[in-house]
């Protein structure tokens, strides 16, 4: 691979990183806090490409033939992630990844005391918040309130749909699901991987996740409504 081709690959790769970090696409893969570093890295890649082309266009200083035959061939591989982002832009982790691992509640940090829920009717809650309050506080702060959870549908072990959201510590490679079961009189017929708002009330029902034996709390759903994927797909 000669240096001009390397410069083109760096433009592609840097451009892909910049495109993903200037739109919301990067939120499918990493945490929001990484954005400034991604932009800086993309700019530096473009600068390296520009400087490579600049020096290629100028006559080489004596002692350098300008055509080193030990240029790294492995660099061709950088086209793969670049085009992966530019052409495909794979979606955020969904029900398949959620089914692979056990609910993240086992590793959750447990507060010693749960503060009362904010006012609102229904109260929007994250799945992690609902699950920790339901399991570790026996739902004391949830009782008697109408709650609204947002997540996507994944198939539960009994075949019934479960409300699911992925949590990410660093990037999607360490993504883990939080699962909340749904019962109640309302039939939930949304297909797998659809995002929904589920409104309902606390129920003391808890089942075990067959993957890691962690507790999966349930929500008694009173109504639900299909929605679009949120800007930040991970909690």
């Amino acid at each position, binding site marked *: 691979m000669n240096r001009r081709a390397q410069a083109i690959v*760096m433009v592609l790769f840097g451009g892909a990183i910049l495109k993903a970090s200037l739109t919301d696409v990067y939120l499918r893969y990493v945490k929001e806090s*990484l954005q400034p570093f991604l932009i*800086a*890295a993309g700019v530096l890649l473009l600068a*390296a490409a520009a400087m490579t082309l600049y020096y290629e266009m100028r006559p080489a*200083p004596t002692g350098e033939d300008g055509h080193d035959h030990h*240029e790294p061939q492995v660099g*061709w591989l950088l086209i793969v992630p670049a085009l992966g982002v530019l052409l495909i832009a*794979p979606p955020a982790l969904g029900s398949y990844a959620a089914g692979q691992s056990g609910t*993240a509640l086992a590793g959750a940090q447990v507060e010693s005391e749960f503060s009362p829920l904010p006012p609102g009717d229904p109260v929007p809650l994250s799945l992690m918040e609902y699950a920790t309050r339901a399991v570790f506080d026996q739902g004391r702060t949830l009782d008697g309130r109408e709650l609204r959870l947002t997540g996507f549908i994944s198939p539960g072990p009994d075949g019934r749909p479960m409300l699911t959201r992925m949590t990410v510590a660093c990037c999607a490679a360490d993504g883990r699901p939080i699962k909340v079961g749904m019962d109640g009189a309302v039939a939930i017929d949304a297909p797998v991987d659809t995002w929904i708002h589920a409104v309902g009330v606390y129920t003391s029902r808890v089942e075990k996740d067959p993957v890691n034996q962690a507790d999966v709390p349930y929500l008694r759903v009173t109504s639900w409504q299909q929605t679009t994927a949120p800007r930040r797909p991970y909690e």
Partner: protein
Amino acid sequence: MVPTISQERVTWRFGSVEALAILLVTLVALRNPLAALVSDPRLQTWTTVFVSVMVQAVPFLIFGVALSAVIAVFVPRSFWARALPRHPAAAVPVAGLAGVVLPGCECGSVPIAGSLMRRGVTPAAALAFLLAAPAINPIVLTATAVAFPGNPEMVAARAGASLVVAVAMGWLWLRLGRSEWIRLPRRSDLDGSSRARAFWASCRHDVMHAGGFLVLGAAAAATINVVVPESWMQTLAAEPVLSVLALAALAVLLSICSEADAFVAASLSQFSLTSRLVFLVVGPMVDLKLIAMQTGVFGRRFAARFAPATFVAAVLTGAGVGAVIW
């Protein structure tokens, strides 16, 4: 100069740029079939994990590449002679402790270690730095403290065990290592040209080289992530010895960034604290992505010896420290 260039234009041959252009046009034309191909949920998850490992690693890779270019071009050789103790055996622990100042993960430390060796730092010290830096820097230790709020001793155990392994491997290299195992790629372009030119040449080379191997590692990690279901791990958690080996192997296979591995370790709560400590000690030192990058930067003969030896040292030290504390 000018006649040479025009002569080059006359003897035009089919080269990398032309190949790249054809490849790109083909791929863009095939965009829709490609997108249809990855609609399979497994392949889709693989693609997402692969891209996210790359995106997560890029800032650290670029930071490491730029810093290693600075070391290669702007820091004079005499600086390292003054900064590190003259005797190699004394330089190893100093270099290991110096890892505290590099805030990043393992992707950045490989090119930096290569650059240090090229600037005359004794390989044993550069290797101690390579192993210690991704494990004991403040960002990683803070993440560990946040992930284990109930076990603050995990932070000290991780830092201590990692430093011990790094220094032990440095000393082991002094005793048993052979310099011919390390084959740093020849870099004629760094000598005899202007500093700015050398800086950008070093950046370009390291991005293409370390970045290419990072792609290999990210692909391997994504494959493991999709192929190995978590339920397999659960059955191993009950056995004390097996659980240590299982999490050590998992650390190698998953290749999670050292800034995130503490959160994954915390979530593996069925496993003993000792086995999770081993996970945290092994991960930043030996994993698929690192083995691929070390093979690229230092050569195959080096990686084939260094990675297994480090793995054994990390498992034994982690298990030993864990046995003492818990």
